[in-house]
């Protein structure tokens, strides 16, 4: 049996949550350092075995043939490391932010960080799980703590919004559960690899495959919030406490795509081949919708939330095009969006903290007061827009290369409709993203100095340091993306070529 490494990275945050809660009363504000230490340990474990991949398995319910396993391979490495790194640095950022939000109520820190740890453990467990039931359990474990975090420390109509968030994603999860059940009865196993092998060898009627695949994909798409299933997202992401927004949007919703690639695509390749074009069109509409809505927002966090919908559309487009290169691009976008969007949400938190507002119309001219924040925010928006040498550039490039490859693939020559969709997507996506990004930078950080800006200055270094770490990571990975590609591409090749 292999060393228990990954199980520690998931279980230690869960088991230490009660401890953090109790110590919160004593340590108050400083309990954040404890959470940071715990998450650093998890992150270190994950990064330590990221090079070669790792797999562990433990018996759980032998009677039903269910086990608990944790697997880190080329597909889960980018997701797990993104979640781990973001949550670790945001744990630091949360300390000054929560001080601003709740003041000196020591009990609040304890509950906040306990829930925070559970939430992170849920996300890590989801991307490491090897069994469908285990996956579902962690998938729901993401939901409960994040729901309470929003309901308790959010803004605006926080209870109603948290409730809406819960119901939407819980309905999605139940639909997912229904599809998991069907898969279990079709194949007689819940192990992800086992199901994949069984479905490949047995073969099921196409109508049944469509039914199960649609249920499974809808289950994931609600969490991802693609157009039509996105209603909860702008509310939840805008009104959540900002550090949580910085996890919800960059880390959590993208995990839905992990589910789609690992499970839906692995189980039902035929479904994707047949419906590739409609899915690509849906992705195109999601990109446009998210981008246009982002353009029309005046609330910084709402703008970022709509921009997330648009970015998830990029990933959707990559997956829908079903080529190795485009899916690789989607995963790069997940990482790049994760780093940049976390930076931007944290910037909006800094605006709330310093200028006391997140309305873009009330801001302006902040560049002279907080130059470092301004630079980081510009890096963030450029990363979303895919400007080289940031990681986002590679993501977008690969998605579009992949889509053009799919256009040219049919033997009968050029697929005209697909070609038009791809070109439209490429041009509109880049224009829209760069448009809302740069325009926002201009309105918030430049132009004449507003009243809110006069009082502001650079935030405390605890708020600034996490931003810098992530921005530097986005640049390093952008200059040297090969590390990532070498890890990820073998798995995707296996996935696509096997179908």
């Amino acid at each position, binding site marked *: 049996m292999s060393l228990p490494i990954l199980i520690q990275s998931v279980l230690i945050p869960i088991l230490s949550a009660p401890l953090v809660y109790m110590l919160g009363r004593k340590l108050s504000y400083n309990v954040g350092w404890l959470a940071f230490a715990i998450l650093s340990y998890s992150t270190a474990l994950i990064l330590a075995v990221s090079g070669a991949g790792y797999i562990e398995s433990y*018996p*759980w*319910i*032998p*009677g*039903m043939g269910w086990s608990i396993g944790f697997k880190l391979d080329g597909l889960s490495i980018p997701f797990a490391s993104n979640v781990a790194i973001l949550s670790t640095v945001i744990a630091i950022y949360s300390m000054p932010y929560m001080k601003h939000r709740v003041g000196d109520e020591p009990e609040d820190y304890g509950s906040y960080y306990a829930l925070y740890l559970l939430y992170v453990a849920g996300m890590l467990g989801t991307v490491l799980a090897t069994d469908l*039931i285990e996956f*579902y*359990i*962690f*998938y*729901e*474990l993401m939901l*409960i703590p994040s*729901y*309470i975090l929003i*309901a*308790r420390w959010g803004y605006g109509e926080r*209870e109603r919004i*948290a*409730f809406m968030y*819960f*119901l939407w994603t*819980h*309905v999605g999860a*139940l639909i997912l*559960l*229904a599809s998991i*059940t*069907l898969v*279990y*009865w079709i194949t007689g196993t819940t192990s992800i690899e086992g199901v994949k092998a069984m479905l490949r060898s047995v073969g099921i009627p196409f109508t049944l495959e469509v039914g199960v695949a649609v249920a499974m994909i809808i289950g994931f798409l609600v969490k991802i919030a693609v157009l039509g299933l996105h209603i909860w997202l702008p509310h939840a992401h805008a009104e959540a406490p900002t550090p949580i927004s910085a996890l919800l949007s960059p880390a959590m919703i993208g995990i839905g795509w992990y589910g789609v690639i690992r499970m839906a695509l692995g189980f039902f390749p035929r479904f994707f081949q047949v419906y590739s074009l409609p899915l690509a069109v849906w992705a195109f509409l999601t990109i446009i919708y998210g981008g246009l809505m982002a353009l029309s927002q005046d609330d910084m966090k709402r703008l970022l939330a709509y921009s997330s919908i648009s970015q998830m559309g990029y990933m959707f487009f990559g997956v829908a095009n079903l080529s190795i290169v485009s899916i690789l691009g989607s995963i790069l976008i997940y990482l790049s969006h994760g780093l940049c969007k976390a930076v931007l949400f944290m910037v909006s938190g800094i605006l709330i903290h310093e200028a006391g507002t997140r309305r873009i119309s009330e801001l302006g001219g902040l560049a002279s007061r907080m130059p470092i924040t301004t630079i980081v925010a510009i890096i963030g928006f450029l990363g979303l827009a895919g400007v080289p040498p940031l990681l986002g550039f590679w993501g977008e490039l690969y998605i579009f290369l992949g889509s053009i490859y799919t256009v040219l693939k049919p033997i009968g020559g050029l697929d005209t409709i697909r070609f038009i969709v791809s070109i439209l997507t490429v041009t509109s996506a880049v224009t829209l993203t760069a448009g809302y990004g740069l325009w926002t930078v201009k309105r918030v950080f430049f132009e004449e100095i507003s009243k809110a800006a006069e009082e502001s200055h650079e935030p405390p270094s605890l708020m600034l340091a996490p931003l810098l770490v992530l921005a530097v990571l986005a640049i390093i990975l952008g200059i040297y993306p090969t590390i990532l590609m070498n890890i990820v591409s073998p798995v995707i090749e296996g996935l696509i070529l096997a179908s």
Partner: protein
Amino acid sequence: MLVYPASSLLHSSFIVDMVSVFFILPILLVGLASSIYSTSYMSRDTGLNSYYTLLSAMILGMIGVVSAGDFFTFFLFWEIMSISSYALVAFRKDRWEPVEAGFKYLVMSSAGSALMLSGIAIIYGIAGTLNFAGIALATRTPTLVSDPWLILAISFLIVGFGIKAAIAPMHTWLPDAHPAAPSPISSLLSGVMIKTGVYGLLRFYILFQPLYAYWGMTLSILAFFTMFIGNLTAMLQTDVKRLLAYSSIAQIGYVTFALSIGTVQSISAGLLHVFNHAMMKGLLFMAAGALYHATGSRDISILEGIGRRMKLTGVLFSIGLLAIAGIPGLNGFISELLIIFASIRCELYLQTAILITNFLISVAYYLRLLQRIMLREPRSDLPEVEEAPASMIAGMVILATLCVAIGVYPGLLISMAELAGRAALDIGSYVAPILGG
């Protein structure tokens, strides 16, 4: 399987098989927890000697019911259980609400017992014996299927058990009686006593083999009716214990549905849910009781935000609510999942969809309750409250620990439930020891 006396076609007898064990276990666990809990909850009351006597009699009655081997013994313990529970519901007899609720319960439940007794009489007329094994053999004749007397007898039994299990439309006593009873009694009533009705349905569902098809369909229709009534009405409640009472009705609907499918998987899933619901609902009623004990109110709008003052009770209450809402990692999820599995296995897609819809509706009100009790700012007129006394906490901690432990590591209980499911369907070995000697 334990049979006493060994060869007993004519005696009063006990048969304890895996199914009985699966009911006895939660009865004893919730019984233990609520006795511990009672020591401080009831400390302000008078007449405690009769309280604990009645409590023990009720637990004795329930255990007797699930271990009886013939109708005489069954009915005897059934009445011991019912009569002591009437008295316990109306225990605080100086107030109007418990007396009214107790009286309503008395009238409905006695009517149920009377119908059951008539049913038993008719069955005795047909089979010539009161022994379960004997009846199972006697009713196996195919011609009996269309015998109107047998159908009448079975309808009587369904109504008798249905009233005790609070299957809609026979549920109307429950939302009055369960909130009015002292909280440890509510947790016994809702957690385990209504399950004796389920036990009756399960046992006789299988004993009368030839009538399988009728039973199954009737039960599943009743089950859906029950879950909708329970869930939709629970959404409208403003009284926390009344909400929990309606949620019990809905949960009985899930269990009845699982039984109505009638496969080993579905029956084990249903039994598992019986066990899990006993833990969760026992815990919830005790936690609601602790809030009532501290504030003197069961009104949710008054209790808003009290979880922030009574941290420990609040956390235990939340565990119960999340468990019953079917959140993964806690015990309710496992059994709900297994019920869904069992029903999809039999290709009951429509029924599964209805079931899932019901799970969803229920999540809405559990969550809203959680939100109001735990997350809201406490009302300004909320009286100063203290944390519940240690023995109340101890009673709740026992059940909460089980909720979490079973949720995290359900393997052992699932294999037990599977044994019980097999035992329930295995008439041959149920009958053998009685007739063999």
